[in-house]
């Protein structure tokens, strides 16, 4: 039954732009400060205060338009979208309705069979964020809510797709590709958990082969990849159930309940979809010259694909390593710096250290690469020492760990560690000590429990305080034990 219908999904993405100041006033664009600190007459909508466009917002919007291959309206303007809600003190949101900055573009996504397809972008437009409402229980009981206007007037970019996605996997790929794009263009900090990217999905079903779209339902207020995927699953289930019962679907807006994993219709508070848009009289139109557009093109940061390609072609990394090391722009920047600092012949070992040790540490601690205390240069130097067999890999790891846990600078710890021991006589001495101390284990080994070799290697490493090369120790051990 479930395969009777084709899924048709379109997505709206709202992303906060990480400009230094708000969209239309000089307030800092940073709402991690005490409530109602970054506010001014303009973003509070005090009568008489006038908005002025932040040019950084325009530049960021242009980067996104260029990356999404949209047609750019070199003459565009803002419009007012009216509605009353306490998080919007002006009574309208400054947005772009009639002539958006970018129209008709596309982004390639991955299809389920591993191929690629283009999802068409219908428009990209600039607008402003609202304040944040809180409905804590104590207040709600008293019949009140609270508002913090720090976020009010923060620049937002809305990216609207055509209904071109045909499965949840495609939606997922779209969201990931779009996140990468916004991250690598350095226009958004992409912190989903802080609401810097939000989604609205529209979904309909139609019998396979049918040209015409089915009735469309919109799902509002989705804050993560996961909630978009789960909300779509739930809504598709609901629509199939209704269609199976022979009832026609209603075109409506639904909300997703994260706990119950189901969608339910939003209460229609009023016939509020009439936003009474009109051109914003307080902001003159924007004219983007060819020169300006070229400037923005020339200074665009490279997208993830380009960075990956560079890592593979110039530094000889595997596609897998390049993929892992470009999971975010910050990680890609650090990786590029480390690989460059190490020089050509060190590129692959540096990449291995990044993937295993650095990412392992970040995963364990939940830190981000920006908080990684060892510089790219220091990491590259460390790897070079290991590669040149000046220290053992084990000792290098120990020093790195100790440095990361605050036991001193990597340089000091390495100096204290001492150089690797490659003198066979010394190694053989330690090996004989270990053999003498463990006669029963030696017996077992010789009677066939050869995996005990790891135990012996460990013991020798302990005696050498990590300065022995494990591989060398293993070889010598096998000789000694075999004899």
């Amino acid at each position, binding site marked *: 039954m479930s395969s009777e219908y084709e899924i048709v999904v379109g997505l709206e993405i709202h992303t906060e732009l990480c400009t230094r*100041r708000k969209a*239309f*006033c*000089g*307030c800092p664009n940073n709402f991690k400060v*005490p*409530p*109602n*600190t*970054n*506010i*001014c*007459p*303009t973003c*509070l909508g*005090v009568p008489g205060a006038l908005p*002025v*466009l*932040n*040019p950084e917002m*325009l530049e960021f919007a242009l980067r996104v338009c260029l990356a999404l291959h949209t047609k750019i309206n070199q003459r565009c*303007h803002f419009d007012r979208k*009216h509605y*009353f*809600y*306490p998080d919007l003190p002006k009574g309208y949101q400054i947005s772009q309705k*009639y*002539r958006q900055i970018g129209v008709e573009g596309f982004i390639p996504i991955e299809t389920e069979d591993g191929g690629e397809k283009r999802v068409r972008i219908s428009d990209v437009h600039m607008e402003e964020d609202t304040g944040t*409402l*809180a*409905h804590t229980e104590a*207040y*709600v009981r008293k*019949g*009140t*809510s*609270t*508002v*913090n*206007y720090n976020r009010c007037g923060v620049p937002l970019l809305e990216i609207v797709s055509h209904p071109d996605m045909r499965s949840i996997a495609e939606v997922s790929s779209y969201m990931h590709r779009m996140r990468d794009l916004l991250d690598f263009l350095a226009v958004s900090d992409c912190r989903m958990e802080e609401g810097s990217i939000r989604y609205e999905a529209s979904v309909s079903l139609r019998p396979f082969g049918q040209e015409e779209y089915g009735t469309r339902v919109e799902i509002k207020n989705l804050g993560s990849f996961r909630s978009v995927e789960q909300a779509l699953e739930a809504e598709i289930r609901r629509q199939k159930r209704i269609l199976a019962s022979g009832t026609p679907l209603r075109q409506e807006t639904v909300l997703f309940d994260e706990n119950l994993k189901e969608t339910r219709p939003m*209460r229609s508070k*009023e*016939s*509020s979809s*009439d936003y*009474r848009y009109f*051109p914003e*009289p307080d*902001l*003159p*139109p*924007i*004219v983007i010259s060819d020169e300006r557009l070229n400037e923005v093109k020339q200074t665009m940061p490279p997208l993830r694909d380009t960075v990956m390609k560079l890592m593979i072609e110039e530094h000889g990394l595997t596609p897998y390593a390049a993929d892992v090391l470009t999971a975010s722009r910050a990680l890609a920047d650090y990786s590029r710096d480390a690989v460059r600092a190490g020089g050509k012949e060190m590129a692959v070992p540096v990449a291995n250290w990044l993937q295993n040790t650095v990412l392992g540490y970040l995963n364990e601690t939940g830190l981000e690469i920006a908080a990684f205390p060892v510089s790219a240069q220091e990491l590259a130097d460390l790897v070079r020492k290991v590669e040149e067999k000046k220290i053992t890999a084990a000792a290098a790891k120990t020093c790195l760990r100790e440095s990361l846990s605050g036991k001193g600078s990597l340089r000091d710890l390495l100096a204290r560690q001492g150089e690797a021991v490659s003198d066979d006589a010394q190694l053989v001495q330690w090996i004989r000590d270990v053999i003498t101390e463990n006669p029963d284990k030696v017996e077992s080994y010789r009677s066939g429990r050869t995996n005990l070799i790891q135990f012996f290697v460990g013991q020798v490493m302990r005696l050498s305080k990590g300065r022995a090369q494990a591989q060398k120790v293993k070889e010598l051990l096998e000789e000694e034990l075999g004899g």
Partner: protein
Amino acid sequence: MPETRSSERIEISLQQLRDIAFLSRLEVPDESLEELRSDFLALLNHFKQIDELPTDGVEPMAHPLELSNVFLQEGVRCPAEPDELLQNALEVDSERRVIVPRVVE
């Protein structure tokens, strides 16, 4: 211009008027609705008349002034202090949040 268009009068029902008043958060007593309707219609019909002008090939005007690209300058700061601005709020809690009538069920 087609003849029929200019001869059509715009109509507006009392319910439409009530809806528009609601969207604008205006309280209009029932006894004022008729008068408001005639004022409203006069405006709408005036615009309808303007609508009849031939505008083919004319760029829609988004702004009445010949002005474009007015951008925020670096280093411009707001002269008003946040604390001063918060005094416009009816009520502010101890954490500086503005208290408003409840907006959820």
